[in-house]
């Protein structure tokens, strides 16, 4: 086994993992948004919660565990749109990262 190659490979993997983590931090921020005075993280968990709500108005907990009344359909559309908008941007940067690897 070529240990120099092993070390170089390990370091390269480390650098890539760091870059991926930094990218994740960035998009965790961008996925956050405000609605009805509450703070939310757009993503599958919130969408699943909203899918379980069948009434026009629903009360759900925001990121600060505050119950907030939302208009279910409008909010769900907003979450989905914000989530995918940011995920697309994340994908572009992720592919750029892999290209530069």
């Amino acid at each position, binding site marked *: 086994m070529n240990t120099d190659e092993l070390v*170089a490979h390990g*370091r*390269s993997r*480390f*650098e890539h993992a*760091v*870059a991926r*983590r*930094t990218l994740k*931090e*960035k998009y*965790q*921020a*961008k996925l*956050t*948004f*405000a609605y009805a*005075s*509450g*703070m939310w*993280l757009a993503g599958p968990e919130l969408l699943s919660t909203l899918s379980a709500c069948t009434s026009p108005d629903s009360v759900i907990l925001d*990121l*600060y565990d*505050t119950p907030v009344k939302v208009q279910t359909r409008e909010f769900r559309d907003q979450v989905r749109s914000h989530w995918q908008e940011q995920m697309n941007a994340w994908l572009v940067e992720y592919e750029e990262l892999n290209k530069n690897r």
Partner: protein
Amino acid sequence: MTTGALIFARNNEEIDYVAMAQWSAKNIERHLGIPTHIITDDAVNNNTRHFTDVGNVTWHNHNRMDAYRLSPWDRTLVLDADYVVASDQLKVLLEIDQDFLAHRWAYDVTGCNNFEGLNYFGDHRMPMWWATVMMFRKSKHAELIFDSMQMIRDNWTHYRNLYKSTTATYRNDHALSIALGIVNGHTLDHNSVPWALASLTPEHRLTQLDQDSYRVDFINTENRARWIELRQDFHAMGKQHLGEIVASNS
């Protein structure tokens, strides 16, 4: 509800914090659409006139804890002069029903430094809240936080001993963290900005690519030169490079 930003800026021999704050005020106006007041102990500078609704408040012995009293707005963002606003990310803080928010976590955008030590303070490893970005709403809760910071600053030796802070120098971050503990009944259950503070340490070179994108050159763990492009808000902990960017923009 009125909203605005406050930046505390006090020049020293090395760094023109006032110029930095003036540059930041333009970014705040452009991205967040809110006015900025720069609080400095320098004489009012005519260079500020081109900002929309920007005022200077001459103030001696100013401190971050004066923000509550000095702010003319219902809701205020308090930013360090070296916090670079390159997006509308902070807008979300102005639209929610919270009295006070600050960052609990910070991270190095290059990944070269582990901020574990910086996210805690003292021998007891008390969690640290960063005073770099604070949002407050005029309220009893926010007033008590700022009053407590004042009390801690005025009795710093006592609090430094109590919390076994390893540095003698007073830090707003430490005072804020202690104040949040006192005001929230020592529960450590404080609402925070729900994302980490992107930070750039001084050893990395920062240059501007265009209006809202920046290049960071650094040496990675393989001792190789690397660079990344930043298109987001960040805290430039090294003031020299940011100072050069500000100077080249003026």
